[in-house]
């Protein structure tokens, strides 16, 4: 690379804007990714903090919560008890915030944005402007949701699934008034943000891959982000339509979801609507949403596990196929959330079969991860620990999915703590672990500095033990039939026996919550004072580690590297090092090439000579032209 081209490229990509264009309304994917990350961490603290408050109520029903008055104000009554309507508001907001703002925006928003251009070798997203809009729609959604926490009647409180008629009728509960209106407005903006982001991710992956980066050389992270964006693009509009119809029912007197209702001493005029229709629409998004949060986490852990096992991911193509299989199936299993809604039992049968099919690609993924560890040379970075934790949670949560997918068993377990345990493990915690693994792994790239590993270990072990201590006992409570979203379990004899276990869960939850501050501290501290990161701290193969320590706008100084091989050439027999990055041509590694790669190497050489010849010819033509 000559100095002149270097300078030219530099000139092309480096735009020197002011503070606002560089850090606030930036169109650079790396800055936007960090904006998503910071916002998600902010929301995670609020969302998890809410769960700690309602865990206090559940674990210590007799405790005096007056000390929370400075935060919760009138929601703590004179005797120091949490308001029961506000308990439901907390549950609702916890669900909404964690599912959408933390795990959807925090995972896809951060890592798709950050890694897609860097790992496929692109200077930026297909549309930087749309990408910026995506963040700011998300920010606006967040502002509205945040505002709704402080209004007189309280935020939306009908559960994160907002089933009408409860969510449609302000008479039914205070949270269904202004709080619900704000919830719907916020979600509408959020969906726009997701769609803007998704379109961008898809078009970038399809169109902007660097030379040689064919689809079967894409890192699994990119495959996961790509398929996630496709799922999001197909399912979020359905939620949007459901929200829109609900807005109509709430504000314009239509009866899409309302029928035959007598409430607050009067019979409403609405007739002919179907409350179940909403559930179909909601879960048509709702179920794919599970995979929207889980697939990016699985993608991240694939990359982290392969890198730190110093071994190729086992069954690269099987992994891709299972991602695609999960994506397709995720659209035809939604009604397993509705076995006991009075839906036609035959439909229940169909959905039971389809749901159990989706367990097969999931099992394939789990086995592939475990086999990747087998005969590896494992380096336990914090990211690696979180990825192993993720697999464990994915398995334990996935297995209870088999119970719930069976319609007959679901009769007893539906809407009990068994379900709470199931999805918090497989979707909540597993995805959260994926997010943390991603942060620990790519922090050196994002901020050019290393996070403290020892604090990372502490964070992992407290969180891992914590998550098991919080969610595993919930299986016991669920098997005993204790329903979800109960403010108190003492009012109800058969469920009155769980005080000890609930106390244990709550204590674990509080400790785990506070352990997260170790992470926050590590994150903030390392951002400014961490040890400077080497160019490729994990000795990884993917392209992002070929960029400078602090990649500028445009990512690479000089030409974008060309890709010659798949991203998992770890510990290849014969190779000097235990990794061969993607941009190293086969012709440079004759000692480790497999027979078919040897052919590719020769082909590369020919191509290279061809390239030089063309360059020379054009040089001659230019020279001739100049002479003329």
């Amino acid at each position: 690379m000559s100095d002149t081209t270097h300078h030219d490229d530099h000139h092309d990509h480096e735009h020197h804007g002011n503070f606002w264009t560089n850090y606030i309304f930036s169109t650079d994917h790396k800055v936007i990714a960090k904006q998503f990350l910071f916002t998600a961490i902010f929301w995670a603290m609020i969302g998890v903090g809410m769960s700690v408050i309602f865990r206090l109520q559940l674990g210590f029903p007799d405790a005096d919560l007056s000390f929370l008055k400075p935060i919760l104000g009138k929601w703590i009554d004179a005797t120091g008890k949490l308001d029961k309507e506000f308990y439901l508001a907390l549950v609702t907001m916890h669900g909404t915030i964690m599912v959408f703002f933390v795990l959807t925006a925090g995972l896809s928003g951060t890592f798709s944005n950050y890694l897609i251009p860097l790992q496929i070798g692109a200077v930026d997203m297909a549309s930087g402007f749309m990408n910026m809009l995506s963040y700011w729609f998300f920010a606006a959604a967040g502002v509205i949701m945040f505002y709704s926490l402080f209004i007189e009647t309280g935020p939306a409180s009908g559960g994160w699934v907002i089933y009408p008629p409860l969510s449609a009728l302000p008479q039914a509960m205070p949270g269904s008034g202004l709080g619900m209106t704000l919830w719907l407005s916020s979600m509408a903006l959020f969906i726009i943000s997701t769609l803007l982001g998704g379109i961008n991710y898809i078009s970038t992956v399809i169109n902007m891959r660097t030379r040689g980066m064919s689809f079967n050389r894409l890192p699994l992270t990119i495959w996961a982000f790509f398929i996630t964006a496709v799922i999001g693009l197909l399912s979020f509009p359905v939620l949007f339509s459901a929200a829109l119809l609900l807005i109509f029912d709430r504000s314009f007197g239509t009866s899409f979801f309302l029928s035959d209702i007598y409430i607050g001493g009067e019979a409403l005029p609405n007739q002919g609507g179907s409350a179940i229709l909403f559930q179909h629409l909601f879960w048509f998004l709702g179920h794919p949403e599970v995979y929207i949060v889980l697939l990016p986490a699985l993608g991240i852990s694939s990359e982290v596990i392969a890198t730190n096992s110093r071994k190729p991911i086992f069954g690269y193509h099987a992994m891709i196929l299972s991602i695609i299989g999960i994506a397709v199936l995720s659209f035809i299993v939604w009604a397993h959330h509705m076995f006991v809604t009075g839906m036609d039992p035959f439909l229940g049968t169909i959905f039971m079969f389809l749901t159990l099919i989706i367990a097969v690609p999931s099992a394939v993924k789990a086995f592939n991860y475990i086999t990747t560890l087998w005969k590896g040379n494992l380096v336990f970075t914090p990211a690696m620990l979180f990825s192993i934790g993720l697999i464990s949670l994915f398995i334990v949560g996935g297995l209870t999915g088999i119970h719930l997918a069976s319609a007959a068993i679901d009769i007893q377990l539906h809407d009990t703590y068994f379900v709470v345990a199931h999805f918090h493990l497989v979707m909540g915690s597993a995805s959260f672990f994926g997010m943390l693994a991603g942060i620990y792994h790519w922090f050196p790239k994002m901020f050019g500095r290393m996070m403290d590993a020892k604090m990372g270990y502490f964070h992992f072990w407290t969180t891992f033990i914590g998550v098991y201590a919080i969610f595993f006992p919930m299986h016991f409570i669920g098997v005993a039939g204790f329903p979800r979203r109960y403010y108190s379990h003492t009012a109800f004899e058969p469920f009155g026996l769980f005080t000890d276990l609930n106390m244990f869960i709550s204590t674990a939850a509080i400790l785990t919550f506070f352990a997260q501050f170790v992470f926050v501290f590590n994150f903030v501290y390392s951002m400014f004072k961490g040890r400077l990161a080497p160019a490729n701290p994990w000795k990884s193969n993917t392209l992002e580690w070929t960029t400078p320590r602090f990649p500028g706008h445009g990512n690479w100084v000089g030409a974008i590297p060309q890709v010659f091989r798949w991203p998992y050439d770890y510990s290849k027999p014969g190779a000097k090092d235990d990794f061969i990055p993607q941009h190293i041509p086969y012709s440079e590694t004759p000692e480790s090439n497999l027979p078919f790669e040897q052919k590719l190497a020769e082909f590369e050489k020919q191509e290279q000579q061809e390239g030089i010849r063309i360059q020379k010819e054009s040089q001659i033509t230019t020279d001739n032209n100049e002479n003329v």
Partner: protein
Amino acid sequence: MNGLLIAAVGVLFLVLMALIYRVFMLVRVAKDTKEPNAKDSRVGMSNKVNSILFIVFFFVLFASIFAYGFSEKVKYILPESSSIHGIEIDFLFWLTTAVTFFVFIITHILLFFFPYVYRYKEHKRATFIPHNNQLEIAWTIVPAIVLTALVVTGWTVWSDITDPAPEDALHIEVMGHQFAWKVRYGGKDGKIGKFNYMKIDPTNQVGMDFEADESNYDDFMYNELRLPKGRPVLLKIRSRDVLHSVFLPHFRVKMDAVPGMPTQFWFTPTKTAEDVKKELREINDPNAEAFQYKLACTEICGGSHFAMFMNVSVLEADEFQKWYDSEEAWAAKNVDYLKEKKIKNIPSNLASN
């Protein structure tokens, strides 16, 4: 209780102190920042410690699951089902649990022991095994077969449960509203009269439509859900405001109550509360004497969702019949109301009262 809270705060304090200590240490380290020497070993002592911790975690996890699962079993597992189909559901549940727990243990032995066995060693190389199609096929097909077996067993139970109710089933209407249940029996003719939500008012809480359906006149309501032992019961479930869900945990019954869309569920109660108490006494359950069947709401329905329950009792068949026949019809108790509403087709025996 407060003691635990204080303990929690105490632990937090310790964590905080540890953090502060760490801050000082980091500052010290940060002062002499330098690039790590590439020649140094890639991992330190922590790598081994972490890998051992996985094994420790494995034993602690499974030991606590087993210890708690067995010692507190009596307390947490519901008494054997009091309905016929419930026994099948329980069988399915335990079958699935056995299969999944087996997989849980096997996968976790691998997952938590591999870290130690294959931890990083400086002069070792990982084995380059990118894929193995036989293995992939094996672990696609084996789960598929196991799942098919489970799903087919589950399906037979599901279709038994959702079959139409037998002809002789007793019909009972259960209506949910914020925040209570209303139970209505068909009276002498055993037929539950038609309702119309426009007819609901503070007296006629379930909206019986007397003009549309005369079989309403002998219907009666009761303040608990009484069921006959050994006879199929068909619950006709509805709601008059928001979604609710009828949950009879001891009978393994659950069905949503949806405004505008009546649902149903049929089952056969097999034990009175006294029968269950006897069983519980036999296994020395300390809570045996307090045993009581309950109906709970399992679909979020507003602030007092958690307190929306009703007592349930199962009576011996003859005892039940005696009670059923002795109950006075709702209409007979509320003749004044019917007259006030100017209902035209009041039967003569009532109208003369």
